[in-house]
């Protein structure tokens, strides 16, 4: 299946197209946030607090006079940054562990999959919450006492490290499971036997013959997982153990304003809606990719 065909399938599927557009927009917004946002996310104006919608402030201002539109745009940068890095860390981990477990079996398989099972045994959010709350202060303390990490603390980036570390630590297990099951089924295929018969080494079989064939489920899982990462980040930030102010995060924006929902519902609704739409978009996209990769399953 080549790229062109997949794209064609995607465009034909309306929800998936919607997903693709929104996800692309999210990443573009994230990359170009400093140029797109009319003002900086922490720029306050105490002479213009709680303003409603206007040309100058398309989504109004909050109680410190910060432009909500700008904060949403900067929040996109946080969200896309966290998604990209978390998946970039967690996915290779999952692929490697899954591939090792799937191709070697035996004790290694048992050990890796039991660790994954342990991670699965806990309700996902609870585990994330627990890890962020316990790891967070330790990572923070470690960074403060280590000279070359200290700038992370001062720049306010340590929160990102905590969130990403937490989500990646948990995220690999699902990927490992998926890759392992793919390996188990693919390694029994005739063409693998053929490759081995021709004298291909273990590594060559894994990288040349099995891995490429597991790629499409991995991509689908990534797209589905991205929505989960965004939700988890918002959730952690809402609870105050994720991205903390003044760094922009949609979850933190909801937390900062939820008490005012009666008088200024916009402050809560806008970031909430944005989070919802993004998660929906990732799921639609994942679904669409799944159908595009497996054309025979699309008319279920």
């Amino acid at each position, binding site marked *: 299946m080549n790229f062109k065909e997949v794209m064609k399938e995607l465009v034909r599927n309306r929800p998936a197209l919607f997903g693709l557009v929104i996800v692309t927009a999210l990443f573009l917004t994230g990359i170009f946030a400093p140029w797109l946002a009319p003002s900086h996310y*922490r*720029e*306050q104006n*105490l*002479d213009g*607090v709680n303003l409603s919608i206007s040309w100058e402030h398309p989504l109004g201002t909050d*109680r*410190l*006079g910060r432009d909500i539109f700008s904060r949403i745009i900067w929040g996109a940068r946080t969200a896309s940054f966290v998604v990209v890095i978390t998946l970039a860390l967690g996915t290779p981990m999952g692929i490697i562990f899954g591939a090792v477990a799937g191709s070697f079996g035996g004790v290694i398989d048992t050990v890796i999959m039991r660790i994954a099972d342990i991670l699965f045994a806990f309700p996902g959010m609870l585990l994330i919450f627990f890890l962020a709350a316990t790891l967070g202060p330790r990572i923070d303390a470690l960074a403060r006492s280590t000279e070359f990490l200290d700038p992370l*603390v*001062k720049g*306010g980036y340590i929160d990102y490290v905590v969130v990403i570390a937490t989500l990646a630590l948990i995220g690999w297990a699902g990927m490992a499971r998926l890759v392992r099951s793919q390996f188990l089924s693919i390694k029994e295929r005739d063409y693998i036997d053929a490759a081995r018969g021709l004298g291909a080494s273990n590594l060559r079989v894994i990288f040349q013959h099995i891995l490429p064939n597991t790629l499409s489920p991995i991509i689908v899982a990534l797209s589905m997982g991205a929505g989960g990462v965004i939700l988890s980040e918002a959730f952690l930030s*809402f*609870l*105050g*153990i994720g991205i*903390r*102010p*003044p760094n922009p995060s949609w979850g*933190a924006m909801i*937390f*900062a304003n939820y*008490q*005012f929902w*009666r*008088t200024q519902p916009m402050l809560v609704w806008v970031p909430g809606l944005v989070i919802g739409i993004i998660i929906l978009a990732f799921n639609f996209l994942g679904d669409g990719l799944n159908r595009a990769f497996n054309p025979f399953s699309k008319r279920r």
Partner: protein
Amino acid sequence: MKNLRILSFVLLLGLVLGACGGTENTEPSEFTPPASSQRPPVLHLLGAYPPTRDPHLATDATSASYIVEIYSGLVTIDPDLNIVPDIATSWDISDDGTVYTFHLRDDVLFHNGKPVTAEDFKWSIERACAPETTSPVADTYLGDILGCREKLRGETFNVSGVSWSDDYTLEIAIDAPRHYFLAKLTYPTAFVLDRDNVGQDRPNHPWTDNPVGTGPFRLNRYTQGEELILVRNTYYYGDPMPQVERVEFMISGGSPMILYETDMLDSTPVGLQDLDRVTDSNDPLNAELEIVPQLSTGYIALNADQPPFDDPNIRLAFIMAVDREKIVQVVLQGAVQYAPGVLPPGMPGYDPNVQGIPYDPERARQLIAESSYGSVENLPDVIINVSGGGGAPPGAVEAMLEMWRNNLGIEVLLQQTEYSVFLVDVSQRPNPYQMFSLGWIADYPDPQDFLEILFHSESLDNKVGYNNPEVDRLLNEAAVENDLERRVELYRQVERLIIEDGVWLTTSHGKNYTLTKPWVTGLVNPPMVIERLKYVSIEP
């Protein structure tokens, strides 16, 4: 007496934080009887987590608000803020003003039925002053008593200034005639404890789980993060007898306004978010609103023990760079009163003409250039510490961070610390925090309670490393001055010097906005922490 989380009185931050996870906890209360049926004599209040429940260790207003109901001492403060007899019915003061002879009631029983005698008071004061008790406040409130400081230093076993001639006559000798000494005895550190009770620590169950006090209420149950329940002490000696059977403090969180509107709370403080609604005279809740200015001051401490605030120019620059009046008007919605100085209105010695340090960013930058650091680049990193756990910092602090950044070009970092850890940290000498946000609420209506306790160089409650010999001299003079007018004048001089030295970036004097249901009578909302639940009755 008490440290105050400056936000608790308008923002309720600590109280509402629990709300994110705790909404399900309210389920059993759906069975609260409807208003039409007979109302049980139970008072439902919003509570907060007490950092300590040991009277001799209490340094904060939240802890004290429970302690003053469970325990009592020789004297107390009535709702009109007069010092009145409690376990002592009367007292004689020697001519030189240094020996107090207290005549105790003979009908006072501990919660376990044991009579209270003068010996119990001597034991309690010695327990408060014992080094192993590690009371952070014994020196401040009992230090005037002869032998107390020696005992705190571990030099003696006996507090020589306290003695009894019979079961109901207690004598306390102090080092100098001090006008405010009686007032200090209203602080929980001077309360009487039962020695058999205090020894009963079990693993994971400190004695404070089953406290034996003498106050109008007994602790029935305390479940951390859930509730604290007081029940009426039927042995209570005082007047009036408590009228409600139980007082249930809800600590689990939830939205206080919704709980109040659904009759699950009988009284609630109002947060900023609901202020517009309740102050609107057309709103039905308005009739249930009471607004009481507090004898409190919220401040950002600039710790002279920690660089860069060891240089007064830097301190003043940080203060001048903040438009405090605007923060009070806009961010705090004018719900509190702007504080140019240290003493709150209503406190004896309060000076309405006090000039605060003006907002002047230009001059602030100049001061940094004139300081020993020379320029912003030479300053060390500055961290401001706020109590609380994660989430959004208080709006006022966020506004200040932005003002320092814009007006001085200084990126101040924010650190949040859990409240009870925070209180332990700031009571260290030297205090490890460069800047921190806290408040102070009066223990008793005397300016000494603010100015000497917080700013005398030898006071253990001087959390900001403040040391001005002129201030010390004036404070020592005022402490033993018997002419009231002269005392007030001395304290006003002291306040002006403290303001000029810039160790406190004062922000606001608090105001309590409280809603109370019409069927609750006698629930006073005092401007400071005093015992108040015994006056409450509930119409059936």
